[in-house]
């Protein structure tokens, strides 16, 4: 559609399909296209390159600017990673540990997924690879108790960063969401001076259920941002546009692969450009 020289009704339909194909959802896609269609009447784009830029800018404008990590007074930053099953929380914990270690910080990781088979072993590998100190209990133990011990360890060691890896859980499971609220409660009580960030880890291949996930987690435990993973695939992750519109939540980082280096800061213009590619 960007290759043709003419803008007609078909153009707008095709542009809407690109946004729908990117998982933005029909509502967001329709509103964005309606808006640039009105703008195009006042300032007609000279060519398809200019049309693409208009669309890219419109998408980028929907995103909330990501807060800069590290710009606060607290000596300890706590990253509470939550999300549904299999989205990449544990791997992201490893990537964050690498980033913080490279920046010269001391890192503690809490193996707070006490439920899933080999969850503790998996995060232990990441702690080992990144030099982070791991706090873990036995499998089947209380997740909040792990968080409690990890908070104590972070204080005792004067850590700069505490990363909490939690078990995946579907947002429809009330007892599991309640458990998460309890774990966060332990962190806020034990580390009142810390800069606590609750980030929802979401898979870029997720469809419209991603909106339900974000609103449910935000409502139950409060969220400060999203990490969108698996952007090295063909999915565009447009669901975060619908999430931004509904919740005002920023995307803070993007997962772009399976190694510890594959974590980049979110940039709305780059994200919008990649969505349209």
């Amino acid at each position, binding site marked *: 559609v960007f290759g043709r020289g003419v803008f007609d009704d078909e153009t707008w339909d095709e542009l809407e*399909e690109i946004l*729908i*194909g*990117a*998982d933005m*959802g*029909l509502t967001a896609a329709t509103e964005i296209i309606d808006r640039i269609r009105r703008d195009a009447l006042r300032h007609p784009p000279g060519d398809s390159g200019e049309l693409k830029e208009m669309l890219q800018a419109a998408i980028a404008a929907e995103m909330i600017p990501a807060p800069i990590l590290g710009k606060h007074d607290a000596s300890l930053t706590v990253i509470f990673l939550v999300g*549904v*099953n*299999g*989205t*990449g929380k544990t791997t992201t914990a490893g990537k964050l540990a690498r980033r913080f270690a490279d920046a010269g910080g001391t890192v503690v990781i809490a193996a707070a997924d006490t*439920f*899933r*088979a*080999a969850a503790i*072993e*998996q995060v*232990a*590998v*990441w702690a080992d690879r990144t030099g982070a100190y791991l706090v873990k209990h036995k499998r089947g133990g209380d997740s909040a108790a792990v968080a409690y011990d990890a908070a104590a360890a972070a204080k005792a060691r004067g850590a700069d960063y505490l990363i909490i890896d939690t078990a995946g859980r*579907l*947002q*429809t*499971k009330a007892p599991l969401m309640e458990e998460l609220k309890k774990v966060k409660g332990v962190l806020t009580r034990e580390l009142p001076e810390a800069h606590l960030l609750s980030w929802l880890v979401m*898979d870029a*291949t*997720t*469809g*419209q*259920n*991603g909106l*339900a996930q974000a609103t449910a987690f935000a409502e139950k435990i409060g969220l400060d941002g999203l990490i969108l993973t*698996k952007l*090295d*695939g*063909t*999915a565009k992750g447009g*669901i975060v546009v619908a999430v931004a519109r509904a919740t005002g939540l920023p995307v803070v980082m993007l997962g772009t692969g*399976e190694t510890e280096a594959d974590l980049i800061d979110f940039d709305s213009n780059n994200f919008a450009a990649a969505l349209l590619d």
Partner: protein
Amino acid sequence: TLAGRFTDILAGIRGRGRVDEKDIAEASRQIRLALLEADVNFKVVKDIVADVKNLALGESVLKSLTPGQQVVKVLRDELARVMGESAVQLKIGKKPDVILLTGLQGSGKTTAAAKLALLLRREGKKVLLVAADTYRPAAQDQLVSLGAELNVDVWRGKTGQTAIDIAAAAVHGESGTQPDVVIVDTAGRLHIDNDLMAEIVALKSAVKPGHILFVADAMIGQDAVNQASAFDDALDFEGVILTKLDGDARGGAALSIKRVTGKPIMFVSTGEKPQDFEVFHPDRMAARILG
């Protein structure tokens, strides 16, 4: 719900007795909205809307229904037709029959391997699980742990072996357990990762599985078609295991995958416990997608 949407728009045209062009234009819009919200791929939605339009305008619709009811019936029948008429059985062949599980990262393969093992053992089969994911940290530990919980043997080969070495050894009887069925768990991989797609194709050649199942997450959106087509082109899989159906994702990916590859959904995973696994029923999925 979709039925709810139709009741509203078509309430005003009750008297006419047969569906006409104007009725179908608005109905098409509502069908498109409902299916896109349910994560059905937009190209598949276009095809379905066109099919429903032709069928609803045609003569084959029951005269005893109102126009609204006719359109909903045509849509329900069309979705059921696309999903498949009935459950497709996994037929276990001569021993050792090999089932290869593949799919994208985090879709639920390792968990599904254990669940499928439990289901087959309950049917009286001796199963060997093969932990052939050599990439993800503690992936083999995960399957060994699941196998131990279920009392199912797990083969993990030796450290440093490749996925192909491990799987081939198990299939060629090196585990000494003489299973009826061997289930091979593999690493999650992107359909656009040429090296890893080449690896899974090579693995297929090496172990000659009787069954290849693509494991897909029920909450996938528009990308389902890209993933499934690529895996089907590379491997010609037999069917799909759809996971995480215990959530509230509508599961439109199931419809897209079936429509585009023609391959049936064979099993669904409905929770994190080993028993949360069953044969797929197409009519239930159609109802879920329509909401």
